[in-house]
């Protein structure tokens, strides 16, 4: 069955504990939620993590810097390109190398395409979680076009491994511009249909408006970044506050709302898709010529010290912290992943809502579980 229903215990207040088990269609990964209910209202949710812990941070201690990249792909696999980018940016910042313009623009374009496809998958699976199963197929149909763009340039669809310290691994494919423009044209035509099916639907409003409101104070104190935090009014977009790559030369709006309920978290992501399309529009026609990578030494050794770099992934702020002691492998690598912080607020938000709302709130934060466990 879909959930492992285990009657762990009952107590005298007619409270019982059920298990939304590790395998479940709507937990987007392997996560165990131990929910204690009173009637239909949720009193406490305890997430149990670690089912997909692979020891990525420890593995990085025995790999050289170019070899770390392929492991980061697999942390938040929907934002694979940004995970690669953050490690490359940290290494480049530590070595103080100057990156060519072409590399910056390529990285920005790929990041924004990654953001679109990740929010697309969020839209698809959120619709499916709430019961409108056609949303899944419409979302994935359009995401295929982005994955084809990735495959043509990098060779991989979801696990791209495209960045490397000093630049990117291959130059853009000659068809890249044409395909991206086709995709933008198709997607702009199709996005109003998504609004018709889900965003303006009265049943969807009933399921998400007013559910799980996150106040601005809570968002700041729990560290909720990304569209989930911006829906509560927390202006935390790393692309605006600490621009990296080519973000300082494009104009875009930071999508902020104040209500902070599940509906506005959803709406923030849909609006971000539109903003990403604007960014791509501004960059796609003037990709500067030049080298696509800087010649690096065969063995990269970072000077001793601690380095931190952050990027904006579709789920929030991803940061990498590298302690180097001068060798070719780092001493310690730590990733500050957005999903880990976003998960901490789940218990606080769900108290008092019904069990069906738990699915709605869980889905609106758009967790990717391997990112939590690493």
């Amino acid at each position: 069955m879909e959930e492992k229903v285990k009657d762990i215990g009952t107590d005298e207040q007619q409270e019982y504990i059920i298990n939304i088990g590790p395998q479940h269609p709507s937990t987007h990964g392997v996560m165990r939620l131990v929910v204690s209910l009173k009637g239909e209202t949720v009193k406490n949710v305890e997430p149990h993590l670690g089912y997909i812990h692979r020891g990525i941070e420890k593995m990085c201690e025995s790999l050289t810097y170019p070899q770390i990249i392929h492991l980061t792909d697999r942390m938040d696999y929907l934002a694979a390109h940004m995970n690669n980018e953050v490690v490359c940016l940290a290494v480049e910042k530590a070595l103080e190398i100057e990156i060519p313009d072409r590399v910056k623009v390529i990285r920005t374009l790929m990041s924004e395409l990654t953001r679109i496809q990740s929010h697309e998958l969020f839209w698809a699976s959120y619709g499916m979680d709430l019961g409108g199963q056609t949303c899944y197929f419409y979302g994935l149909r359009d995401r295929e076009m982005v994955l084809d763009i990735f495959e043509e340039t990098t060779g991989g669809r979801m696990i791209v491994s495209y960045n490397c310290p000093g630049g990117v691994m291959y130059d853009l494919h000659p068809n890249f511009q044409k395909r991206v423009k086709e995709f933008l044209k198709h997607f702009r035509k199709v996005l109003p249909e998504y609004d018709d099916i889900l965003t303006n639907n009265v049943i969807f409003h009933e399921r998400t408006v007013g559910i799980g409101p996150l106040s601005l104070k809570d968002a700041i104190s729990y560290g909720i970044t990304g569209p989930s935090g911006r829906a509560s009014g927390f202006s935390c977009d790393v692309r605006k506050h600490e621009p990296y790559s080519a973000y300082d030369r494009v104009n875009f709006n930071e999508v902020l709302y104040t209500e902070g309920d599940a509906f506005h978290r959803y709406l923030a992501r849909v609006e971000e898709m539109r903003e990403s399309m604007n960014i791509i529009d501004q960059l796609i026609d003037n990709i500067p010529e030049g080298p696509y990578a800087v010649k690096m030494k065969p063995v990269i050794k970072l000077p001793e010290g601690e380095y931190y770099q952050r990027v904006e992934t579709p789920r929030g702020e991803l940061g990498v912290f590298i302690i180097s002691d001068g060798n070719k492998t780092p001493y310690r690598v730590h990733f500050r992943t957005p999903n880990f912080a976003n998960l901490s607020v789940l218990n606080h938000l769900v108290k008092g809502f019904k069990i069906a709302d738990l699915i709605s709130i869980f889905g609106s934060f758009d967790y990717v579980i391997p990112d939590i466990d690493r």
Partner: protein
Amino acid sequence: MRSIINYLKDIFLGVRSLLKGMKVTSKYFWSPSSIVTEKYPENRKTLVMLERSKGEVIMPHNDKNEHHCNGCGICQINCPNGSIEVISKIIDTEDGKKKKIIDRHIYNLGQCTFCGLCVKTCPSNALAFSTKFEHAVFNKALLIKVLNKPGSQLMKGVEQ
């Protein structure tokens, strides 16, 4: 009175939003040209894979059965999880000098993570990605492949 008007307006707007949603789905129902399913095993002949797709790592040989690999082992050093093992041997050349050439280049497809470092860092461009993606086998030992074909030799002019 105001509440009755709001009530009726709510109902009207709700029903209208539902009808709009149904219009989109029925539009897709009536257009079979929007079906995106690819009938996979039947369309193998016309299937076009994109040229840079990472299917597996191969060592391209030209029609004289020559390759570029000189057994330096840089790919083995760079592979993050040990999927490549380069076994080289020492032979005598015509000049009487001893030269190291590649004996077997063993590649473990089952363990490869397709990071592309071996392809990128090879100094003689001996390795490349091929687009063949049908690798399913029943015996894991079949996934350990020897990349240099028997009887092949190093192409003339490739540096050491």
